[in-house]
């Protein structure tokens, strides 16, 4: 029981949609070619190869389904927000798919007309008395209801975004508004248009009642085409504005996901893979609430605005936004698209031109020097620090020799006793301790780490007790990659010459640099939270539990940067009672001292620190613990309660 209602299966009203659709398809094709052209040869080959890999294909399809259609990350953030996005995306997708299925099912020869499945109800009259027909009618109306409920939520969100878990939303551009309103209009208009034809072409629980309710108006066949024209026009306006608005994320994300899964990296801030990232930003505004810079005023420096300025190629504003960022990565860890905001900024920073570039040739002289009289220099330095800490140089030397003898003794003991755990026992490995630049402003960190190392009796030496070379991360973050490499080389040489198998780092910033940018073969880079937690587990370091309430601050580079959340917490839990911060782990708030920001002023930093401290002290802890010397200095300046370093806490609670 079905036949085509319209002779020639064409009506003028399909034209606006058709032209809009062709425009979007051409634009996307052009954009795709442009992005592929901008990739380097290796990147392109890597991308194509990954498209042929079956495991990757499955992963791509899975990611596209869960990220683009279901918006899993938004569901996790706020169920209502998740429902809003997935109802529109998945609902619309299902409407399109069902339209095509219906066409294919009833009149396959019309599949080649792109507009036909979209306006199927207008062209075809199908009986709802068969099971298949009734099912199609029901599903179409069901998904229309799903989309309409999503649109309803979207309208509601415009007025009360807090109910959907968003304090602030993005300031849209004029074109964004055009696209937004046309998108809102598409589905009510479709409902009305299908309601008009429901009397003649059939419908289900959504379309038939509206046809009956407004029967005197809707039964008039002259109104039918007007309704379908309106629907087609709304679609057309949306299609024509799509490439220039945030809705470009819909097609681009389908490209971005395979590119990311292929392992491509951002090189230029607005070329190739980065361009795919820019166009994938849906301006949802999750990054605005996430950004620690936008706490006291409406931030114009959040990632969503950076993306906008990068797209517009506004150099001055782009630079401002790129240089201000703390690089704490909170926005990208919460971003539903996982846009590499820091990588994009870094790429922009590295494009800056400087007349005078740093040159660290002078370090070579230092390296040659230290290789010659390495031991003498180190001993002199060790003696000096001992003198400072104990106040009695003779006793200090004696005790240091004592501890060395003890440690060697223990090493022999451990060699003799344990055979199985030999390889896993990190306490018996030779450790090189690198404190980092920032630690020289907080000597308590170094002192505490040294005390802990002595207490656990491991064999260790200092890498930078005297003069030290920066790890290179600040240079890297300022976009001076080549200069950072010089420092990496210099440090690598020192580390390899030391013969140590563990590089112990007490600074989160350095740790990330060593982990990501150094290739230290045979040397395991460990953050002191990992290392001391391990030593406690092995029983080499014994701590007692105090009655103090601690709160732990996740340093950006350690938590979001390197994924270390558990180790410090485990260790602190043994030394006292650990309370929760307002927001922690992935959502921890940067202390405000970050070396990542180049242009943030002192006053702005103070505000960020203030807010970060408020967040840490919601559960009234006695002491704030952090595992980064920079966070320690920053907090200590402003905190009303005690701020201590991780190692300091362990030292205080040593058995």
């Amino acid at each position, binding site marked *: 029981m079905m036949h085509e209602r319209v002779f020639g299966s064409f009506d003028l009203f399909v034209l606006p949609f058709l032209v809009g659709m062709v425009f979007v398809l051409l634009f996307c094709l052009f954009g795709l070619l442009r992005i592929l052209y901008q990739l380097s040869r290796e990147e392109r080959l890597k991308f194509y190869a990954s498209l042929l890999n079956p495991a990757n294909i499955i992963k791509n399809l899975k990611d596209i389904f869960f990220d683009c259609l279901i918006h899993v990350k938004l569901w996790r953030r706020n169920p209502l927000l998740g429902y809003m996005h997935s109802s529109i995306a998945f609902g619309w997708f299902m409407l399109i798919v069902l339209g095509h299925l219906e066409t294919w099912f009833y009149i396959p020869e019309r599949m080649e007309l792109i507009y036909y499945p979209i306006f199927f109800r207008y062209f075809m009259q199908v009986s709802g008395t068969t099971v298949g027909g009734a099912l199609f009618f029901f599903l179409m109306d069901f998904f229309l209801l799903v989309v309409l409920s999503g649109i309803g939520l979207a309208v509601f969100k415009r007025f009360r975004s807090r109910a959907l878990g968003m304090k602030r939303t993005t300031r849209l551009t004029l074109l964004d508004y055009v696209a937004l309103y046309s998108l809102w209009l598409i589905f009510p208009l479709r409902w009305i248009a299908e309601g008009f034809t429901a009397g003649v072409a059939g419908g289900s629980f959504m379309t038939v009642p509206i046809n009956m309710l407004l029967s005197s108006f809707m039964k008039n066949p002259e109104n039918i085409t007007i309704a379908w024209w309106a629907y087609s026009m709304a679609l057309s306006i949306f299609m024509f504005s799509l490439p220039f608005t945030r809705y470009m994320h819909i097609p681009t994300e389908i490209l971005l996901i395979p590119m990311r899964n292929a392992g491509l990296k951002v090189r230029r801030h607005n070329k190739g893979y980065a361009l795919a990232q820019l166009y994938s930003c849906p301006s949802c505004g999750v990054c605005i609430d996430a950004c620690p810079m936008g706490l006291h005023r409406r931030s114009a420096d959040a990632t969503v605005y950076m993306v906008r300025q990068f797209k517009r190629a506004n150099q001055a504003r782009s630079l401002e936004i790129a240089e201000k960022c703390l690089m704490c990565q909170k926005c990208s860890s919460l971003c539903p698209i996982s846009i590499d905001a820091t990588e994009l900024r870094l790429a922009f920073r590295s494009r800056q031109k400087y007349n*005078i570039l740093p040159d660290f040739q002078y370090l070579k002289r230092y390296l040659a020097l230290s290789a010659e009289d390495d031991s003498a220099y180190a001993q002199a330095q060790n003696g000096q620090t001992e003198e400072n800490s104990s106040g009695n140089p003779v006793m200090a030397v004696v005790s240091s020799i004592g501890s060395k003898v003890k440690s060697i003794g223990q090493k022999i003991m451990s060699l003799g006793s344990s055979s199985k755990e030999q390889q896993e026992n990190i306490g018996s490995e030779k450790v090189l301790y690198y404190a980092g630049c920032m630690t020289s402003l907080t000597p308590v960190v170094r002192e505490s780490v040294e005390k802990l190392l002595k207490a656990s009796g491991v064999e260790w030496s200092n890498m930078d007790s005297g003069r030290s070379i920066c790890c290179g991360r600040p240079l890297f973050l300022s976009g001076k990659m080549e200069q950072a490499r010089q420092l990496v080389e210099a440090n690598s040489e020192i580390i390899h010459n030391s013969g140590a198998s563990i590089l112990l780092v007490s600074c989160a910033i350095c740790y990330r640099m060593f982990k990501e940018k150094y290739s230290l073969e045979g040397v395991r880079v460990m953050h002191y939270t990992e290392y001391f937690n391990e030593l406690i587990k092995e029983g080499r370091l014994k701590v007692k539990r105090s009655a103090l309430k601690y709160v732990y601050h996740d340093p950006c580079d350690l938590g979001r940067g390197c994924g270390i959340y558990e180790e410090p917490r485990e260790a602190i839990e043994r030394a006292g009672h650990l309370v929760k911060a307002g927001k922690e782990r992935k959502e921890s708030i940067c202390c405000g001292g970050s070396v990542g920001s180049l242009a943030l002023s002192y006053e702005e930093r103070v505000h960020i620190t203030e807010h970060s401290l408020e967040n840490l002290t919601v559960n009234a802890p006695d002491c704030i613990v952090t595992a980064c010397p920079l966070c320690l200095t920053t907090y200590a300046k402003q905190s009303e309660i005690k701020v201590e370093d991780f190692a300091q806490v362990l030292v205080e609670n040593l058995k």
Partner: protein
Amino acid sequence: MVNFGYGLTPSSAVKIIEGEDKLYRKLCEMEPDVKKCMACGSCAASCTAGDFTEMNLRKLILSLQRGYYQQALPMVKNCMLCGKCNIVCPRGINTRHLIMSIQKIYNL
């Protein structure tokens, strides 16, 4: 004119040539905070590069203000941008950005 028995000596410290002054003024435009510097030397005392080289931000700023930039500028090549000077600065000057601006504006 009354002779008081003493006279004003011409300043030997400041020797500003027009071109050099122009650069300094440009620097002040980009980094207004540079005028806040009170030459306390905290930056120089905490400097990582200062352990190896002549790098001394206090001296550099003073030299730029006085127009002796050819002698002082080479030291800006040594900076590792570690940011300690930024933290210790009692005047809250963004020293890292200042150094980067100097690297941008001036030429050796």
